[in-house]
């Protein structure tokens, strides 16, 4: 009788209180610091709801449990997100300057370096693969791969680490970029492409990518297929309603559901473990290595091209779109305020999206 009048207070545990604090921290980071608020706010509220004592919201028949079951356990939400991302992505910079696609490949080294580091720290291969994919700097890809490879306890920390570091790209990348490049290299002005991409090329490109990626990494086919389908909607010019729906309503609704579902996996018994800190540390390592490898290939291309390619755009190969390209641009402008790198950085940036999806497919293919 007395217990009933106290409601859920007797069920409140220290773990639940700590998770509520984590939830509020995520909400704070999203709202006050503007760190990926579109994702961190729903994830934070998802964490809060999942840890309310005695409410059972995140249990199998609670509404967050149902969301998790219909959209996360079967990888539906990340794929719908990728459809929206494809509809928002302009591959024209890549079509105008195809050599920059290599920079998107180099930055994927962060994934594999983090896998090796995770193995050295004692993780098993499947979990190491899921943690390493944080280095892709691509939220949907990270969630798509981790929900298939990792233990369910790790889904939440991996997703939160990925989105947190993506939000921190403007803080993480510039010191590495400046350390690895000289002022003279950062001042290189790249020639602006003289030709626009034709309509036929913009339509054929996504179709060819779907076929190519599914041949090389069949497990990446769902991701690449949805990304490129979204891009075809954008470029077709005759299905504007579908393109706009993908760019707005679909991706926004999916973002809400995905955030809540990911947040609901972060309950006290799963999240408050030493492995969470390990995941965050490895995620940081993966981001750093991805940036280093992108910039280093950028330097090689700078030398090979007769000093015509600015190595800073290599850092945009991590696929945090468009943040990484903006960072490359702003670091370039610190050395020369008249240097407009963002057009050139968008090429490796969107190549990074493709590269990370393919790398995710390769990891899944090898480990599943």
């Amino acid at each position, binding site marked *: 009788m007395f217990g009933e009048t106290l409601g859920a207070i007797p069920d409140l545990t220290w773990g639940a209180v700590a998770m509520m604090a984590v939830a509020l921290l995520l909400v704070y980071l999203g709202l006050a610091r503007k760190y990926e608020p579109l994702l961190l706010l729903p994830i934070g509220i998802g964490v809060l709801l999942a840890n309310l004592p005695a409410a059972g919201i995140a249990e199998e028949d609670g509404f967050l449990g149902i969301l998790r079951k219909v959209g996360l356990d079967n990888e539906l939400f990340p794929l719908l997100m990728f459809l929206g991302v494809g509809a928002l992505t302009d591959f024209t910079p890549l079509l105008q300057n195809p050599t920059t696609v290599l920079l998107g490949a180099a930055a*994927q080294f962060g994934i594999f370096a983090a896998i090796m580091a995770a193995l050295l720290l004692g993780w098993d291969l499947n979990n190491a693969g899921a943690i390493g994919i944080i280095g892709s700097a691509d939220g949907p890809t990270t969630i798509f791969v981790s929900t298939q490879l990792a233990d369910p306890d790790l889904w939440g920390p991996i997703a939160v680490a990925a989105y947190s570091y993506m939000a921190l790209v403007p803080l993480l990348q510039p010191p590495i970029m400046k350390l690895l490049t000289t002022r003279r290299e950062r001042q290189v002005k790249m020639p602006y492409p003289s030709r626009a991409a034709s309509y036929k090329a913009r339509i054929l490109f996504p179709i060819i990518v779907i076929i190519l990626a599914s041949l090389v990494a069949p497990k990446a086919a769902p991701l690449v297929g949805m990304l490129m389908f979204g891009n075809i909607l954008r470029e077709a010019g005759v299905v504007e309603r579908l393109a706009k729906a993908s760019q707005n309503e679909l991706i926004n609704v999916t973002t809400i559901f995905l955030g809540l579902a990911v947040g609901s996996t972060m309950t006290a018994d799963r999240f408050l473990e030493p492995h969470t800190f390990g995941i965050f540390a490895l995620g940081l390592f993966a981001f750093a290595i991805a940036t280093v490898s992108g910039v280093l290939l950028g330097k090689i291309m700078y030398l090979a091209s007769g000093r015509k390619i600015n190595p800073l755009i290599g850092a945009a190969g991590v696929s945090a779109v468009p943040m990484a390209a903006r960072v490359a641009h702003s670091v370039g402008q610190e050395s020369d305020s008249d240097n407009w790198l963002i057009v050139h950085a968008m090429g490796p940036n969107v190549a990074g999206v493709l590269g990370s999806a393919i790398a995710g497919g390769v990891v899944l293919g090898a480990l599943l």
Partner: protein
Amino acid sequence: MSAEFAEGLRLAGAGMGLVFATLVALMVILFALGRFFPGEEAEEAVEVPDTHAPAAQDEAAAPVAEPPAPIEAAAAPATGSAPVPQPDAIAAPARDGVPGSKVAALAVAVYLAMEQEEAERAGASPTPSVAAASQADTQPSQPTSNWGILGRAALWQSQGRRPSAYGHRAHSAYPSSRGGGA
């Protein structure tokens, strides 16, 4: 070396190899697409026939063909970003004879002014370095670039110009009564 670590090494080697091979193949395909389906040449820079802003005119005559795209790229896949002028629309010359580069410069200037206003409205940014990064990104502090100078001049002419004093018209709409013409 444990068997699992060795397997991880193989995965890393093969994985990077596959990613590179795929993207190299993609690069070749991109070159082929560009060759078989070439796009249109970008428009040449249009000289600004402007008598009001000599400094801007001198700067604008040279390499204006560059950067409308930063605006688009900055706004591209960031969900929920504000609508901004698209580069295609900026680059095309206006129908009424106003040079395309001038329209573009005006658009850039208005966009930068809007961003600055937005930043000021948002108040002090929580992280100075983030704020500095985004400001440096969007708002070149001095109009040292061609675009900056041209944009400021265009904005000044169109929006910020005060009306001339009575009887001091810079240009008469009518030919002179002495027959000299304008």
